[in-house]
Each structure stands twice: as structure tokens, then as C-alpha cells.
């Protein structure tokens, strides 16, 4: 079976299965609240989507930080996937990645221009990861003040016996921007619960504008959101160099023709840097290379041919 076909099947399953609580769309719509919600999936899939049965990594990390808790569990869960597969879940199962792939294909069909993104766009995703997923929720935690005395409310922690300050949880600042939240959480929740319409204001409008801009961009750019804005991809990509799954380029076969780059959904030059944080491990380049220079391997393989790790740019 062809790899691209397998990948499409995998992306379809990756879109349906994490959102398979179809009951939520029935007569008495209620978000899924079962045990699977504890599973932090290594994809950008909004847990506020009515039928989502797993948790979003970006949302989970923000939520733990907003509660003043170190997100050991959420980081461990995403890290476990990253360590094994690097960023492969971005290439193979993420619904938002899939949407971008589909839209770009549609853009080609209707002959829209292909706008290439500069390499520096990839720094953006780290800024979003650090700024809005980590620092934002932390900085917005505020102490709870007693209205009458004007002082911070303290209580005795029953576990430690120490006096501690009560606080208002921080804000999930990335979620306020996230277009996947708008698409998967915002629109369906408002459709299913018309009473929410009264609560909608400037934030909803802003999120819809962001979503609209991204949906337009996806038609003309290759995965702009993944490359410049996604904190989940930013985190997973950090593991590409040390994950079990590795890619290798045989420099004795590579002619630097760049067929791999043209076929790549994120326009990455794999022949220069096979295990870069930018690569989504989709494997499109392996099929595109006419010289069989690119291969999948693992970090423990001892290669008997003259394989060389090309110098990273």
C-alpha cells in the first residue's frame, strides 16, 4: 500500500477517533466526561469539542499551570510520544495538520497562488509555547482578596498543615488565541447550546477572525499554523533528534535535487538536516526521492553502509 494513502487513512482515523463521542451531538448535548479524558493526545485536538474524548496537550499544560501545579503528567504524556516518535503524530494523525494538508491541496486544485513561508517563521511556535502556554497562565494567577478586609484570604492546607494563600486560577492564554479551539469548541458549542450566544463578546469575534485568516492562509501556504504557531508541534519537534524514530540521508546517493523539499508538506530541506525539529516525519520525501537516499531508521541502528548525518543548517 502506498505510504501517502496509508497516511491519509491514518489522518482520517486521527480526526475521527479522538472525537468519537457522537452522543454529544444528540438530544441532550453534554461534553464527554469519561476516563479517556485523562489521556493527553499528542495532537492539537480541542477538548472543548463536544465529542472530544481525549485531552489537548496545550490546554492541559496551561490548565495545570493556571492551578499553580507543575504539569508533570501532561508533559510526561506528550513527552512519551515525542521520545518514541518525535513529531510523527503531526504528520500522521493530527486533525488540524490534516485540515491544513487538505486545504492546501484544494488551493492547488482551484489554482490559488502558493505562498512560500520564510524559515524564521518556525521561531514563532516557540514564542507561543513559552509566552502563551507557560508564562501567560502563570502571570495571570492572582491572590483571592476578601471583599470586606481587602486582605488576601489564607487557609490551612489539611495535607501539609501550613497556611496558604487562596488564589484565582490563571488564564488559559493560548486557548484565547487558538483557532482549533474556535473551530472545534467554539462553533459547535454555540450551535448546540444557543443559550451561550448571550455570553459571546469580543473574544469570540477575535477568535473567529483568527480562524478565518488561518483558513484562508491554509489554501495558499503549506501548514503555516504548524510551522509558526503550534506549541504542541514545537514541543514534539524538540525530540526529533533524540527520539527512537530517526531519519537518515545517505549523502553518497543524495544529488541535492530538492525533490524532497518540493514534496514536503512543511517545505523542509531534509537532505540538509534529517532530524530537524521542523520535520513532521510524514515520509513524503522518502517516496519523492528518486535516488533512494532517505530512509527511516532508529536511534540504536548501527548502519553498515556509508550513511552520514548531513550538517544541520
Amino acid at each position: 500500500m502506498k505510504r501517502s494513502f496509508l497516511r491519509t487513512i491514518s489522518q482520517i482515523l486521527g480526526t475521527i477517533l479522538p472525537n468519537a463521542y457522537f452522543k454529544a451531538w444528540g438530544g441532550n448535548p453534554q461534553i464527554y466526561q469519561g476516563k479517556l479524558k485523562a489521556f493527553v493526545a499528542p495532537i492539537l485536538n480541542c477538548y472543548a469539542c463536544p465529542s472530544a474524548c481525549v485531552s489537548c496537550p496545550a490546554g492541559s499544560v496551561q490548565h495545570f499551570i493556571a492551578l499553580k501545579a507543575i504539569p508533570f503528567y501532561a508533559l510526561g504524556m506528550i513527552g512519551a510520544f515525542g521520545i518514541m516518535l518525535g513529531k510523527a503524530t503531526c504528520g500522521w494523525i493530527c486533525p488540524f495538520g490534516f485540515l491544513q494538508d487538505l486545504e492546501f491541496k484544494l488551493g492547488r486544485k482551484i489554482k490559488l497562488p502558493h505562498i512560500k513561508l520564510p524559515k524564521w517563521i518556525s521561531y514563532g511556535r516557540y514564542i507561543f509555547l513559552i509566552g502563551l502556554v507557560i508564562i501567560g497562565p502563570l502571570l495571570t494567577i492572582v491572590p483571592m482578596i476578601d471583599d470586606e478586609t481587602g486582605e488576601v484570604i489564607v487557609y490551612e492546607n489539611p495535607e501539609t498543615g501550613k497556611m496558604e494563600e487562596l488564589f484565582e486560577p490563571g488564564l488559559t492564554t493560548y486557548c484565547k488565541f487558538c483557532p482549533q479551539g474556535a473551530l472545534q469548541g467554539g462553533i459547535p458549542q454555540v450551535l448546540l447550546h444557543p443559550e451561550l450566544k448571550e455570553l459571546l463578546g469580543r473574544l469570540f469575534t477575535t477568535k473567529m477572525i483568527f480562524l478565518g485568516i488561518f483558513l484562508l492562509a491554509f489554501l495558499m501556504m503549506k501548514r503555516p499554523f504548524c510551522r509558526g504557531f503550534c506549541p504542541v508541534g514545537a514541543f514534539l519537534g524538540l525530540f526529533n533528534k533524540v527520539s527512537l524514530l530517526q531519519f537518515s540521508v545517505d549523502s553518497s546517493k543524495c544529488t541535492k535535487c530538492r525533490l524532497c523539499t518540493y514534496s514536503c508538506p512543511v517545505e523542509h530541506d531534509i537532505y540538509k538536516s534529517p532530524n530537524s525539529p521542523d520535520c513532521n516525519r510524514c515520509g513524503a520525501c522518502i517516496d519523492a526521492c528518486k535516488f533512494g537516499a532517505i530512509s527511516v531508521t532508529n536511534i540504536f541502528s548501527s548502519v553498515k553502509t556509508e550513511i552520514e548525518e548531513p550538517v544541520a543548517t
Partner: protein
Amino acid sequence: MKDSKKRAFPLWRRGAFLFLVALAALFIAHGIELLDVEEILTNASILCLSCIGIG
């Protein structure tokens, strides 16, 4: 060209892989022990008004 017997990946990367496997396992176990993650994440998903765009 590197010599043909050479390993594909440097030792530090293999070491980092093993270290990170242990670290992730530790993080997950410690996280579960520390907090009721199931309840926290379920509540997070119900209460994520920011996802929807309210607030």
C-alpha cells in the same frame, strides 16, 4: 565520508533517549500520584471557556 562500521547516531543521542524515557515515566507516575488528573482534565475541558471564546 564516515567509515562503514561507524554507528549511525552519536552516543549522546542514544543516552538522551534513554534518559528521557525514564524522565517521562517518572513525570507521568509522579503527576498521577500528586493530583487527580482525570478529574482536573475533565473539569478543564468543561470549563475551557477560552477555547469556546467566552470571557
